[in-house]
């Protein structure tokens, strides 16, 4: 595994990527060009493994090659995305960027593989995939009825520990590895040409945020990211694009109420079971899938905050 801060070595490598030949595309994902050369396949709000095409995924086309940003929750989703890429460009795919470990974002990884492709993720992504990969494959088989072999869990070839600039040909993507927030392996992508900041699951809109990292870390990160001048952002779940930093408001408000009310319950001596009945229910009507994830978020918040000094 390469730990890399330089893009020059990569440039030499990607020149050898062959262009794909004709492909069998029974199903092509519908994508929207949200800015010049940036395509997004919108996800629908549903519970992971209960449905397909849950996350917002997409790709960015440069003059020389294509970077895929997340690949969906199944092999079929990855294939449909690959067909969408082929419907738009003949450029080869040179990078597959996994924004984090969650299965709705990365189980299509194998389907977009091409010779010479580099899989790229946060420096903590390999560990997270190693620890959870088996469980995700089991759930894909049991819950979704889509058995997948271990080859569908692809560890990154390149790990980003701080930031990495990728040149796609007259187009540079800036990848930033963040400290623990939504997960402990979140990566964001900034396209300098169009001012597009692809935040993936660091930002939720409409769909209730899901905490799998640190509620405090996430709030801190959102606050810091607000200073980033971006013409538009792409949430991991929600509309195809939104204005920044206004788009952060809902996620911040939800996480803040959850944090504040959980802290109050802990200080009052309520145990986790009691806290689950009372914390942040003012948010109920503001989110889709609230009933599916809110109580779980309270567990995440409580078990983190009870160890605060």
């Amino acid at each position, binding site marked *: 595994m390469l730990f890399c801060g330089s893009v020059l070595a990569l440039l030499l490598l990607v020149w050898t990527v062959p262009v794909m030949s004709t492909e069998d595309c029974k199903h092509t994902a519908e994508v929207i060009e949200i800015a010049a050369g940036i395509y997004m396949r919108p996800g629908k709000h549903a519970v992971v493994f209960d449905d397909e095409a849950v996350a917002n995924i997409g790709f960015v086309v440069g003059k020389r090659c294509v970077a895929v940003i997340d690949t969906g929750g199944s092999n079929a989703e990855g294939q449909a995305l690959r067909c969408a890429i082929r419907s738009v460009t003949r450029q080869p795919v040179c990078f597959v960027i996994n924004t984090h470990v969650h299965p709705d974002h990365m189980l299509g990884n194998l389907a977009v593989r091409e010779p010479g492709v580099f899989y790229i993720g946060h420096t903590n992504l390999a560990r997270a995939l190693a620890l959870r990969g088996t469980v995700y494959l089991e759930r894909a088989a049991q819950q979704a009825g889509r058995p997948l072999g271990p080859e569908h869990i692809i560890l990154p070839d390149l790990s980003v520990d701080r930031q990495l600039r990728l040149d796609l040909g007259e187009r540079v993507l800036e990848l930033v590895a963040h400290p623990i927030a939504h997960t402990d392996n979140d990566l964001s992508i900034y396209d300098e040409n169009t001012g597009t900041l692809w935040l993936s699951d660091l930002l939720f809109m409409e769909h209730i945020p899901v905490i799998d990292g640190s509620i405090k870390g996430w709030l801190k990160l959102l606050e810091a990211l607000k200073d980033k001048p971006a013409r538009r952002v792409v949430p991991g779940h929600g509309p195809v694009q939104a204005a920044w930093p206004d788009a952060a408001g809902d996620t911040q408000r939800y996480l803040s109420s959850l944090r504040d009310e959980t802290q109050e319950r802990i200080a009052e001596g309520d145990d986790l*079971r009691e806290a689950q009945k009372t914390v942040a229910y003012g948010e109920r009507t503001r989110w889709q899938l609230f009933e599916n994830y809110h109580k779980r978020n309270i*567990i995440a918040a409580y078990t983190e905050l009870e160890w605060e000094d």
Partner: protein
Amino acid sequence: MRYSLADCTGNWPSFWLLAAMLVMSGTAVADTEEDSVWLGGLRTTYFGDRPIVQSDDVIELEAPERAEDSAVVPIRIKAKIPQTEEHFIKTITLIIDMNPGQLAGRFHFTPKNGRADLGLRVRVNAYGPVRAIAETNDGKLFMSRRFVKASGGCSAAVGTDIEAAKRRMGKMKFRTDKPVLNGEPLAVQLRVSHPNLTGLQMDQITQLYSTAHFVEKVAVSFEGQAVFAAETGFSLSENPSFRFYFVPDGAGELHAEVIDTEDLRFTGQYAVVPDK
């Protein structure tokens, strides 16, 4: 008590062995298939042929019907009888039928608890019954049982902030409710920072399982007198948390000693000062 990987292979006794045991013990037949693991050997392992009354009149187990997070399932056991010198709950045994290492823990109480309530968090590996069995000081057994829908709790990856968890191992946090009154049961929350590794968490790169490493013994005393003791297994969630009661009889210090499977010992103290 040590758990090994062999525990998770789930070698349940055959139907015939089950049938034979039912006949031998002469106890009531299972109402549903849900209790097959319990009747197929668990019951005999832990309680022999002693009679067990299934009832929520002595203790009542509260558990979510469907767990939001199978690695952190909050449960509570409510005592329905007071702890008096003459009659009290001595031990509560918590069993999760479908877990590898089904014995989640044994928890010991005395009249000094005032009430033998217990709150904790467990891992649940597959849909199945969770049962709490109370033994009173006269040797009688009472069982409260709930069916919990959850899966994967034992193989789920540990926590999310692994670095923070490593730094914190062995740290303890005590908390008591307010007000603190002499002679009145006082709720105590004891939190222990420990990964409580099950040994079933697989690393897909190495294809190896993490070594089981979990809290095995907990002993809490107040001014030298035992107020809570437990032998526990890896079915307790990461960072084990215990909520129990004791009756203070003046100012003093709560002292906790925790021992894990690697024989690491951790201690914690907390001053209790009555409000009046």
